[in-house]
């Protein structure tokens, strides 16, 4: 494999909960608890897991929208965590984010043109007003909207159109990496397909790299080259997407895959029902985080944290018993 575009190593983010009269940190939420992965240029890495497992926090830490507690993030070999001031601003040109909720991620008081044009102004990518307008018009056309629509306000658009605006804003700075934080979960199924196809087309055309965060496995399977499965702040399995879907190794991945709905009522299959709820990330279980719900757990799972170890071509799993 050639040099990765993004390398994340042992990333941790703990949120302190303050309490007591002195506002001391009394508890910590282990949102991201030692996550490592690489993304190659032009690749799409899917990041899946249920709500609250730390997917979005991971994405935001990569972009430094949240300051990680510890760990390394390297973009094109440069240390992202240590960046300050001008360096960080320049980094913002290379990495962008598309948010989950297109209704919350557009400023309701700015026109679409102003929203997209702002990126150009911040990074001085255009010299004057008409140049900004031309660029905004081109971006709108690129994401399938009309250039006249730049005078409109976000509330005049539907959810899918708004998500296109969000994508246009992210593209304005010509980034290399886009973190897509559940970009389609707020949309209708029919619109989901359109937006996914748009993202794929743009990836081809502009040679983009995606970190694609989602909880919908079928969406991720469609768009990703590789998929990483997260559970309670840790990656439990990471594999090329075909391989993962055909041959899941981790018991959690198996359970997740068995829950994907199949739009065919005649198909019968074994549904793996997990017992109990996701444990509280304030007090995650010892050893393997999944041991409280694992159907195949042994004593070793409660004592030792399983390492993410390779099995065969690019398939990694963090389980004492499998792989």
């Amino acid at each position, binding site marked *: 494999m050639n040099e990765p575009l993004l390398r994340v190593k042992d990333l941790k983010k703990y949120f302190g909960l303050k309490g007591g009269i002195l506002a001391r940190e009394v508890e910590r939420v282990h949102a991201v608890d030692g996550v490592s992965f690489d993304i190659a240029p032009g690749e799409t890495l899917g990041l899946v897991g249920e709500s609250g497992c730390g997917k979005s926090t991971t994405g935001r830490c990569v972009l430094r*929208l949240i300051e990680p507690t510890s760990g390394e993030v390297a973009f094109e070999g440069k240390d992202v965590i240590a960046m300050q001031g001008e360096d960080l601003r320049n980094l913002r040109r290379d990495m962008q*984010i598309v948010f989950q909720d297109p209704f*919350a*991620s*557009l400023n*309701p008081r700015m026109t679409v043109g102003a929203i997209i044009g*702002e990126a150009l102004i911040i990074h001085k990518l255009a010299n004057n007003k008409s140049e900004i307008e031309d660029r905004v018009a081109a971006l709108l056309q690129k994401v399938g909207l009309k250039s006249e629509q730049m005078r*409109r306000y976000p*509330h005049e658009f539907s959810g899918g159109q708004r998500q296109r605006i969000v994508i246009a804003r992210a593209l304005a*700075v010509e980034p290399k990496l886009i973190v897509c934080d559940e970009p389609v979960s707020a949309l209708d199924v029919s619109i989901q397909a359109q937006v996914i196809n748009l993202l794929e087309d743009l990836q081809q055309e502009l040679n983009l790299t995606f970190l694609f965060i989602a909880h919908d496995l079928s969406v991720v399977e469609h768009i990703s080259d590789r998929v990483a499965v997260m559970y309670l702040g840790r990656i439990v399995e990471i594999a090329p997407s075909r391989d993962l879907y055909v041959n899941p190794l981790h018991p959690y991945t198996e359970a997740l895959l068995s829950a994907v709905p199949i739009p065919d009522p005649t198909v019968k299959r074994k549904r793996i029902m997990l017992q109990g709820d996701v444990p509280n990330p304030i007090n995650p279980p010892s050893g393997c985080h999944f041991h409280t719900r694992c159907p195949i757990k042994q004593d070793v799972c409660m004592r030792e944290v399983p390492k993410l170890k390779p099995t065969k071509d690019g398939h990694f799993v963090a389980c004492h018993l499998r792989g």
Partner: protein
Amino acid sequence: MAGSTPASPTVDAGAASAARYSPGLEAWRRFRKHKLAVVSAGILLVMILAILLGPFFWRVPINEIDFSARLAGPSWKHPFGTDDLGQDILARMLYGGRISLAVGLAAMLVAIVVGTIIGAIAGMSRGWLGMALMWLTDLFLSLPQLPLLLLVIYLFRDSLKAVFGPEGGVFILIVLVIGGLRWMPVARLVRAQFLSLREKEFVEAARALGASRRRQVVRHILPNALGPVIIAGTIDVAAAILAESTLSFLGLGFPPDIPTWGRLLFDSKDYLDIAAHWALFPGMAIFLAVVTINFIGDGLRDALDARRVL
């Protein structure tokens, strides 16, 4: 934000594709659709013109004492009647209105500017600074206002008078004192708005684009926080006009011979049963000023909120 109705998503008005377009023009177009606000703006304009130009047309002196016409009701000679010294109330109101309105508007501006700045800093700061500013706000809220007013005015009146002249000095002092004691609710309002807005995804998106903190505040947070502030500001105008009259009553405001609206109201209170007109006209003037400014504030808030279809 609160209470505003998100508009339906389909507006295919031709206005959006007009060749010439500016946010200011658009806001004005939207403001004009708010009937009550436009009427209010008209009334306020008439009042302002009256107090600015009125004294040139209604040439009755404000301090001409005529005991033969004491407490007379409205007549052709004295359209608003006379007070206990037979002075013409219309002339006095035209003169005093300048001061009352100027004090009201200036004090509101002071309160809003100070409150917004302090609230914004407190809302953006995650550390001790925000907490310290909120303590300061609470401190000001808990101070007994009247003794403080007395103290400040006694301390600074003479030096300000020396610099800006008797009327100018008192004006500046009163505006600062009234504005300086009314910024706290605005600061709390702005801070609360900032606390919720700064976590919104569109602000995060601006951060992801590399927007400076200043840009985040000025372009993204502040415009979305201003709706309630405008309303609070218009209410402050009324409070400031009344506060000025309280000060005058205590002998701390303008000299007693300057007939501000609040002053006229206070002077009239002992004669309410025999000369109601004396209280009625200044009271109406204050009421009209307050109500119209309030409606204008309403109209402004809606005109600046693009989500409302107007």
